[in-house]
């Protein structure tokens, strides 16, 4: 087993937290994906062991949800193409991201740096067109600012991707005032959330 002791401890705590251990399967899949950078058969087997399910039951759950991925790059760039973003130019933003990264939507680049995907509504409609990197928001993009964002990721390789930083550097209009800055951010291809041990403080 390749999970860190801290991750195993977190997983056991999550299993104990729910009235039925099975409920912990999605949180554990996030931990698995975070620990190994992608969802592996071994990760799913361990999640099954901890929750008392069979590996096939766990795989059946994992395959239902688009955020559980057996292949991901270091940075997952998700460009929203649903109605509000579509009306305001999402197709051009997606094309700029594909072109700048050299990765077509739905794919991961050969160097493993980027996964690019078009996604359905991410709840940033008032700041359309919008995207996420590692599930952290950036709103009010243009094709040019989206290209700059991709170059910034490629050249700077930030350890922690933070929404406020991306928004300040590359964003435009937001759907609502974000309020004070948040110093936590994403360190991998999963949402950054403390109880799952998948977030870190940035600079």
């Amino acid at each position, binding site marked *: 087993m390749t999970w860190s002791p801290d991750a195993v401890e977190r997983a056991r705590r999550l299993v104990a937290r729910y009235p039925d251990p*099975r409920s912990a399967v999605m949180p554990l899949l996030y931990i698995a994906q975070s620990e190994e950078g992608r969802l592996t058969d071994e990760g799913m087997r361990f999640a099954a062991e901890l929750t008392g399910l069979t590996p096939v039951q766990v795989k059946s759950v994992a395959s239902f949800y688009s955020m559980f991925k057996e292949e991901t790059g270091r940075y997952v760039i998700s460009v929203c193409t649903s109605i509000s973003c579509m009306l305001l130019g999402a197709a051009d933003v997606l094309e700029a991201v594909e072109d700048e990264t050299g990765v077509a939507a739905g794919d991961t680049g050969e160097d493993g740096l980027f996964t690019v995907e078009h996604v359905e509504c991410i*709840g940033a409609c008032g700041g359309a067109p919008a995207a996420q990197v590692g599930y952290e928001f950036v709103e009010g993009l243009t094709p040019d600012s989206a290209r700059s964002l991709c170059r910034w990721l490629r050249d700077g390789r930030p350890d922690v991707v933070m*929404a406020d930083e991306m928004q300040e550097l590359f964003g435009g209009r937001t759907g609502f005032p974000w309020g004070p800055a948040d110093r936590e951010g994403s360190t991998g291809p999963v949402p950054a959330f403390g*109880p799952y041990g998948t977030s870190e403080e940035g600079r």
Partner: protein
Amino acid sequence: MTERILTARMEDHPADSHTLARYEATGGYAALRKALGMAPEEIVAEVKASNIRGRGGAGFPTGVKWGFLPADVRPRYLVVNGDESEPGTFKDRQLLERDPHQLVEGIVISAYALDVHHAFVYIRGEYPRPARRLQTAIDEAYAAGYLGADVLGSGFDLEVTVHLGAGAYICGEETALLNSLEGRRGEPRIKPPFPAVEGLYAKPTIVNNVETLSNVPWIVTNGGAAYDRIGPEGSRGTRMFSLSGHVERPGNYEIVMGMTWRDLIEGLGGGVRGGKGLKAWIPGGASAPWLVPEHLDEPVTIDDAGRLATMLGSGAVVVMDETTNVVEAALSVVRFFAHESCGQCTPCREGTSWMERILERILRGEGRPMDLDLLLDISDNISPGLRWPPAMTTICPLGPSAVSPITSIMRHFRHEVEAMVLQGVPAGG
């Protein structure tokens, strides 16, 4: 019409509205103290008297839903629906990020009223920041004695667990959400039994939206009757509307229902961007049939929307200007539902992707004259009679939701679709 129930704190104290210190300094958790001095059934009575209707989409009266819990079955669960995924909707995200304690207090009061000792907040996976803010608020509330064992010395115990989804719109449907929370595929269940009778772990469960429960502290503080005096009958209280698309000032607006669509789109929203003309708008999220300029002076209420054969749904208003290609817009919405169909029911699984392919070929300039009737025929197989509220051949309303953009363009813009098919001209060509 400037009543602010939900957004006052975040507007007046933007720097720290999400913190416990600011929440307490602005009267926070006083409603909980008051509630703990009341009998649980008194709180349920106040919520019933408020006549608040659920803010997630269906608009079901919250107090009535609470009343469906069987008297003698324990444990009971409270599940907060923070899966907000209806295209155009971003209000719960703001409530979670900017005033999470308002929701936490609503959860504790509601759990006390319903004799619940473990509440779950299911937040969509794409909302890690809202989830972090809420978790921080929950941690603060535990430390301050508002959560955990013996809340404020009352003898009432409550655990709250935040649970992240993983990218599936369908989990906003309450029974799919419960399956997901149980660690299963997010496939809707056949109802009945309704969750209030057999929900999470087959136990009685109340599922309420983030915005709905965020109103509960105000209702307890001011009384259900005071809430019932705000706004028109059938649409009491304030309500968050998410305005987006081709509008000058997109954003979330807390309004008293009963204003007109013109007030909302032209007044608050500043009208269509760039001085262009208005073509249509989606009044309540992607699932809702569209309205057109002749409806601008209709009142924004749940019942008036129903009279116009549409709905306020999740409160998401998506504005389309005169340059919008309606086939392209409809395709975007249909593609969403095709992508998010869980696959259980044949009419939805097959029908949504057939409709997607037909709209794609019309857009490419390869439409056939029969395609218009074909779109309606498929729609009729998913939702017989094409009426509103929709009839269903499916377990949940996702399939019928995909029919809304089809009937909308056929009702209001059939000539445009026909012209595209007859001329064989690709969009923009």
